[in-house]
């Protein structure tokens, strides 16, 4: 069984934000909600690196551990999804998430939060596939069509990889061996409790 993961090769990421707009385009994500974004470290200084970030679909997801209504669930492909019908917008998952993935639409004047929204690994949610209700709440389900998340598919430099963890780890390893350097599989230790040994 495939164990789906994301891997951002920071040696390749150029902060072009294709992943961000691809996500917006695929799921018509509204203004102000960013399921994915690019973070730049040491901006403008030697050693500057950018990484594309979204929900990493963690092993033992901390968001799920703190959710008071148990709206999270993990699919057979190890994708962490949630039910917007159950979500109460409490924001606990935002504090628990090490990657800042959960997003909340503002629904009132006093900063009150709507239902949480986050990266679905292009795998939709609990509603039936191919329905408008699923699309409106969670966006498209590409995975069921045999496609990977569009952010990774459209990455300008093939920096962002998505797919079975073993295979993308293998691709990353081969890259590092070939070019002779690599700054590590960013976020893997936190998300998956394992790194990639080269």
């Amino acid at each position, binding site marked *: *069984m*495939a164990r789906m993961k994301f891997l951002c090769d920071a040696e390749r990421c*150029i*902060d*072009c*934000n*294709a992943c961000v*707009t*691809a996500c*917006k*385009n*695929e799921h*018509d994500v509204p*203004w*102000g909600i960013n399921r994915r974004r690019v973070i730049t470290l040491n*901006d*403008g*200084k*030697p050693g*500057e*690196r*950018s990484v594309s970030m979204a929900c990493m679909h963690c092993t033992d997801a901390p968001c799920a551990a703190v959710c008071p209504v*148990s709206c999270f*669930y993990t*699919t*057979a*492909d190890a994708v962490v999804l949630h039910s917007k019908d159950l979500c109460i917008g409490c924001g606990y998952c935002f504090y628990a998430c090490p990657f800042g993935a959960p997003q909340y639409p503002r629904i009132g004047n006093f900063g009150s939060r709507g239902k949480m929204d986050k990266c679905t690994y292009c*795998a939709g949610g*609990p509603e*039936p*596939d*191919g*329905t*408008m209700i699923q*699309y409106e709440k969670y966006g*498209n389900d590409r*995975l*069921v*069509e*045999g*496609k*990977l998340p*569009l952010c*990774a*598919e*459209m990455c*300008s*430099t093939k920096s*962002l*990889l*998505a*797919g*079975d963890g073993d*295979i993308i780890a*293998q*691709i990353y390893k*081969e*890259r590092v061996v*070939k*070019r002779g350097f690599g700054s590590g599989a960013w976020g893997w230790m936190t998300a998956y409790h394992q790194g990639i040994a080269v």
Partner: protein
Amino acid sequence: MLVKRAAGDTRRGTLTAAFTTSSNGGLDRRSFLRRSGLAAGGLAVLGTLSSGGVRKAEAGPPAPAGEPVTLRKNVCTHCSVGCTVIAEVVNGVWTGQEPGWDSPINRGSHCAKGAAVRDDVGSERRLRYPMKLVNGAWNRVSWDQAIEEIGNKLMEIRQKSGPESVYWLGSAKFTNEAAYLNRKFAAFWGTNNSDHQARICHSTTVAGVANTWGYGAMTNSYNDIRNARTIMIMGGNPAEAHPVSLQHILEGKELNRANMIVIDPRMTRTAAHATEYVRVRPGTHIPTIYGMLWHIFRNGWEDKDFIRQRVYGIEELRKEVEKWTPDEVERVTGLPEAQVRRVAELFATQRPSTLIWAMGQTQYSFGTANVRASCILLLATGNVGLNGAGANIFRGHDNVQGATDLGLDIITLPLYYGLDEGAWRHWCRVWEVDYEWMLSRFVNKTFMETPGIPSTRWFDATLLPTEQVAQPDTMKAMFIMGHGGNTIARMPEAAKGIDKLDLLVVCDPYPTTWAVLSERKNGTYLLPACTSFEMSGSRTCSNRSLQWGEQIVKPIFECKNDYDIMYMLAAKLGFADRMFKNIKVENGAVSAEDILREINRGGWSTGYCGQSPERLKAHMRNQHKFDVVTLRAPKDDPEVGGEVYGLPWPCWGTPEFRHPGTPVLYNTNLPVKEGGGTFRARFGIERNGVSLLADGSFSVGSEIKDGYPEFTLGVLKKLGWDKDLTAQEMAIIQKVNPTNPDAVAWSIDLSGGIQRVAIEHGCSPFGNGKARMIAWNLPDPIPVHREVIYTSRPDLVAKYPTLPDARQFRVPNKGFTVQKSAVDRGVFKQFPLILTSGRLVALEGGGEETRSNKWLAELRQDMFVEINPADAAARGIKNGGWVWVFGPESNSKARMKALVTERMGKGVVWMPYHFAGWFQGVDQRSKYPKGADPIVLGESVNTLTTYGYDPVTGMQEPKATLCQIAAA
């Protein structure tokens, strides 16, 4: 917790079920690898497999039951890389995008813009119907009324002021066919005042590079950079401006362990991936290059054989380089000797080396000299005409290469034929119109053959006294198709110019800055043009490959495509029958294919003759067959065998001749028939007793084992090759010049026979010459350093002044006076910061389109200036705080946010150039037609940029001026 309905849902199945062929129970490795975008190492070879096992499926909002999903293929409209866009269309609506895996150029990838192009079409901020400004209010009018009124006004101006008083400003976002049609339109109207964005983009590149070795274009390709061992980027930030090119650059860098050197005043996103970053003072390109050449010559690192065989003028260059000792280089550029030497050694000795540039070299009052210095460095180190080397000039817009080629330019007819009588007669033969009639359209023969006014000076031609503008009257009307107003320097002057026009017509998917910049109350029309996604046609990427885009959806609202709009106006002006004589028009719909066929029939000079619409469409169908490094299809393929993707020009002869296109220009390692070539013998055969033809160098398979001049029928006769011409070819040649057929050259032979015969004998039709280090027809035959007009080093002006004042392109260029006055007045003391400008990844050009795209606008919501922490601290400026920036001309000022960053060196500030809609602190949102205002507005950098024009092309100087900043 919920468990996903994995087992129960049989309608579509789970991911696992989708990969039924998989052996490991999870994934089909081949299709998976393809999708996960692998690259390095042994896995890379799998990257070109076609997607098999995965079933086609629809994305975007789910299609209603029973509605079929159609996939359509077009090309991204945001930069010159040429990424394939795959659109999913349901019921005439563009519902989603999928990766274009098969394209050898982008292999599924996009940048922020490419991944968001669906909203370029669907944007709610699009102009929906023709609008007319009446007493300061926008009114909806019909197309018929708009064309009728515009046509009448144009005719009135023609009667009163003559045809030269109308400016036809075209677009680098046109398809090739529209660009060609727009130039043809200006010719039929009777003026050479026809220009487009290349003026402010790479006009100096075209002039400088063509004057060195024949053609002014990228010599290799983005893909070919994968072969380089040293990649030097000077004056470009492709990570933001051409993001998908970084796929090739970074993979090449990794696979070859290549050196990647970035020389730039700003520590850009590109520089972050460099092996060496060199921070240089803006405007010191030539001293930097000569500083490198000083070490190269001193250490004997130059390529002596290459220079002897293929280069003219090395001795004069050596004399100039001698002056640039390490001390002087450091004094002018600020670069230490050790770094210059190290970079020079890498570039000269770890070959093949490629030099990449964009507007960081071109946008100077000495831009032509800059790019010539770059060519000289490549020539001295033998880095032209082979894989992995070359001048990889990254053009800006998606079709700025094509629009330049097709003569949307003040100095030439399509395909660089120039403006002399021979050129006009050639195109009149192609168009099948009488030369005398064409002449009658112009004021007189002199104006027919005199270059027009550059787009950078249109407002000077409007505002200056009539006697200072060398044409019958000043500019009275601007007809603008697809060109922003905020990309041209000196905007306060432009605003005055717009006010003074009798007629302003903006034909664009958006209202643009033109509509709101001035205080106009009447005489302004907005015509809604559609985007290139709503029409079909070809576009030329930076690497000279042509790609055919098919219409994705019909034009939205009342928008029309460029062809049909030009046809309507030509009909109103009375020359549609002549202009569209050989182009099919059905119910007002113009055939793009027919326009391309006409280009093919006349495009011999640049090898635009072989790319028929049928061949281009075959390439789009067979994208997956082309190799990612060589761009070539396997020899045995029935449709595209042996051809290079997109038939990069020159693609010689008729389409039936099946030339494969030229992946690398001037490459003697291949026969001409397979895409090889030589340097063009364009500058004569000898000068001062020295031969200008190649010396012992020739392309593989050439029957002439030495240099040779360009081919004419006379030359063929001397060689005894004329007997290879068919009777039909001979008859056409006779018809081209009945009195002296021997003088008919390869470039005006409408039969293609001379090209065919030359190539069959292994020769380049344009001859085999030497590249020139001395371009004796230019102001500085050997490039020399000159300070920018508003320089941060007034102490250097005495030694390195700009060129004397002169008249160029019908208007005065008083750069010398302006520079001297700035030095005398001590402007630098008052404005002590260098201001330079550039591009952001999420926006493009003037930003009219991208600031109206909801996904892109969200990424960049404010105009800002990047400033070094020390400069910010000295002024009490906080990161994210508001500042006023003051410019040294027209009392200009602009209000924006500050981004305090070490990306900038001390004393230099940087601004993006995509913003408009605020002018000198005033929000102009209320002046846009209701609902068509861009989502994001901001101050334009060009409100602050200043005087300075390249004498060869009229290029502006927004890459280095001065400013002062204060906290607001």
